[in-house]
């Protein structure tokens, strides 16, 4: 998404001060052959690995095709209609939306709180930062395998809850036992259990992003606010938060797009189950397209996912990121 709208300047620094040497074409611009030579490899890769698959998906999406033999059975928009009217696909979209909303309302404030905390002078600050960031470094598959073990019935998570639960005043042991359930096996809670794992994995990333943003805020501003009589909350609310805006908006963007693309973690822990309770758009695509030899239908679903993500990204750029990104697409 990086857009460089500035003309490429290949003249060495200082050259502008001296009299510019006579170049072909406009001064400060690379000549066409050079540009073409530089762009061509990227363009070929992009065309071959991005454009061509998308076009192929589009082509498949209007056929009924089991993956073997030629494309013969034209169904027009039938696959799209089926996907959009499928209760399972709509549930998958809904699950992604739930994860996105929960990410924005729970994960982001949590990451922000931690970032603010770890921006203070604090003993062991470096250690905490590393520790909180560590889960993000793990691959999603490793995370999934580990948490599948932790969340299994009578697993570590249950043991921890059993131990800690009764220590909370007013909570009886029966209530704790009542609370414990097969986290990944109960359709009512599996999605939220997964959201917990996703948060565990990704809050560190957003914490680091926000921390970097916090450190870009000059301390003079906060000092000035303090001199003007602002309390810590007011300083945070009226100085820090507005100045952190661009970082928060990028974090939100990453969260939203990420929520709609969740795949690996779900595939490893629940495969979209129990009874479809954690199906996301991507697992739906694999399950109902590839897993059932319905490649035409899969093509249609992938186009829909692409359209939904694209619409989200563009809307976000148009209405939220516009003030942050120069030369945004919309």
């Amino acid at each position: 998404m990086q857009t460089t709208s500035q003309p490429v300047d290949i003249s060495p620094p200082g050259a502008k001060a001296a009299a510019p040497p006579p170049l072909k074409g406009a001064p400060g611009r690379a000549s066409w052959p050079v540009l073409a030579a530089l762009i061509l490899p990227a363009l070929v890769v992009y065309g071959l690995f991005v454009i061509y698959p998308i076009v192929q998906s589009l082509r498949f999406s209007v056929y009924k095709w089991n993956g073997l033999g030629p494309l013969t059975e034209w169904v027009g928009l039938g696959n799209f209609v089926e996907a959009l009217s499928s209760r399972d696909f709509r549930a998958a979209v809904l699950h992604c939306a739930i994860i996105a909303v929960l990410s924005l309302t729970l994960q982001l404030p949590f990451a922000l709180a931690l970032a603010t905390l770890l921006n203070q002078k604090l003993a062991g600050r470096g250690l905490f930062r590393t520790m909180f960031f560590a889960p993000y470094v793990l691959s999603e598959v490793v995370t999934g395998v580990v948490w599948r073990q932790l969340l299994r019935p009578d697993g570590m998570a249950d043991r921890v809850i059993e131990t800690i639960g009764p220590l909370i005043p007013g909570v009886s042991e029966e209530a704790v036992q009542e609370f414990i359930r097969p986290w990944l096996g109960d359709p009512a809670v599996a999605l939220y259990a997964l959201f917990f794992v996703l948060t565990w994995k990704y809050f560190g990333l957003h914490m680091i992003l926000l921390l970097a943003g916090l450190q870009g805020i000059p301390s003079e501003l906060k000092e000035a606010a303090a001199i003007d009589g602002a309390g810590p909350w007011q300083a945070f609310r009226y100085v820090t938060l507005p100045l952190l805006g661009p970082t928060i908006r990028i974090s939100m963007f990453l969260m939203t797009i990420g929520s709609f693309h969740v795949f690996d973690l779900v595939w490893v822990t629940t495969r979209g189950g129990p009874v479809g309770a954690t199906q996301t758009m991507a697992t739906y695509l694999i399950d109902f397209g590839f897993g059932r030899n319905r490649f035409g239908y899969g093509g249609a679903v992938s186009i829909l996912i692409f359209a939904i993500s694209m619409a989200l990204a563009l809307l976000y750029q148009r209405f939220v990121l516009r003030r942050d990104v120069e030369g945004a697409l919309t």
Partner: protein
Amino acid sequence: MRTTKLRRLSALVALLALVVAACGGGGAAGDTSTTAAAPSDTTPATEAPPETEAPPATEGGDGGEKEPVTIEWWHIQNQGAMLELWETLANEFTEMNPHVTFDIVVNENEAFKDAVEPRLQANDPPDLFQSWGGGDLADQVEAGLVRDISGEVSGWIGNLSAGAVSLFEVDGGLYAVPFDLGMVGFWYNKVLFAEAGIDAPPTTWDEFLEDVQALKDAGITPIAVGGQDRWPAHFYLAYLILRIGGHEAIEEIAANRDFNHPAVIEAGNQLQRLVELEPFQEGFLASTWPGPDGEAGWIGTGRAAISLMGQWGPGEYANSGGHGEPEQLPSERLPFEMGWFPFPEVEGGAGDLNDGIGGGNGFAVGRDAPPEAIEFLEYLTSVENARRAGETGAILPVTKGAEDSVTEPLMVPLLESLAQSEFVQLYLDQFFPAAVGETINDETVKLFAGQSTIEDAIQAINAAFASS
């Protein structure tokens, strides 16, 4: 910065994967234009594929020098004694036919399906590859990827069990050669049954439900089922349909492509009776078939009493329970005694106690496989070699005269039942096209979870029929 690089790298890898898949598809579509010219594509039975025309004499044997031939062979016997045996057989065949070499590709079950799909889409099937028959094989036949070998094997196919062979017939042609055939039934832990005071395995569905209740009353988890993998659950529905409506019911369903059948509705009601007992292991909806927390793990560690599974069950119970060495027979590995009983009869049902839901393993023959590949299949399924396979305890050979080579005592009751059965219905999720089969699995698990009714299930499955 490092993370963005990582992200870019993973993005690139993802894109690569996408494009490989897309190229596979494109290749298949493109290739057909060239093969479409060959009349053998649509009528593989009559015309020999082009490659077989080059070496004209395949009989006679000692006719001097032969063109070197490589047989590409994909199988899924990826561990233990069977892996070794297949390798040995290939070497022996090469010794007898020095011009033949093998290119063996071994994959685990699920990995095989993923790996072979691009090859099939690229219109480039391996010479010999694992097949379960059913809807997938029918699709491959329709796409002209596999060859009708009924003529080439006519001299010796009679040595194999006709029932097993029939699983690989499509529209009167034969496209694969079976080497294994088994049946799904109840594996149970005899120790836990004794603890619950059950002396004999149940023979009717009502008795079965009573036993489940007795186990529950004794504080034992009665049944383990791999709800996340879903297909282990579908065995219950499939068997209930078979017991209630007999094989006629399944034939009618398949012929009319309509699951709305009285036997299905009654099966749903009977399944409901079982579900209401809450007999399954904790978190069964998140359980797979293998693995310590899977169905096999619950049985293998003695935490649950009953599992409805095929002939491969005991080996996996031992694996997932973490007992013994893969080379040993399952009954030697398991620390408790197990038994087997057929799916019980349902009162008033039309089905016979020995009719089964089952399936086999075979090797499909790719369109352009050399004739030597067929000769190798003859060698592989010969009585002596089928006996060697049976002795591993991992395979129930289908060659006549090799049945008694299975020395695993756990298999004895299963084999007896199989011998008496007049009808073995292929697992429904393999029997029907993938879209229908997977929907049957989905809907059965919803019934297990108490989240839908049999009427909803029928509606969803019929919708899958319409879309496939």
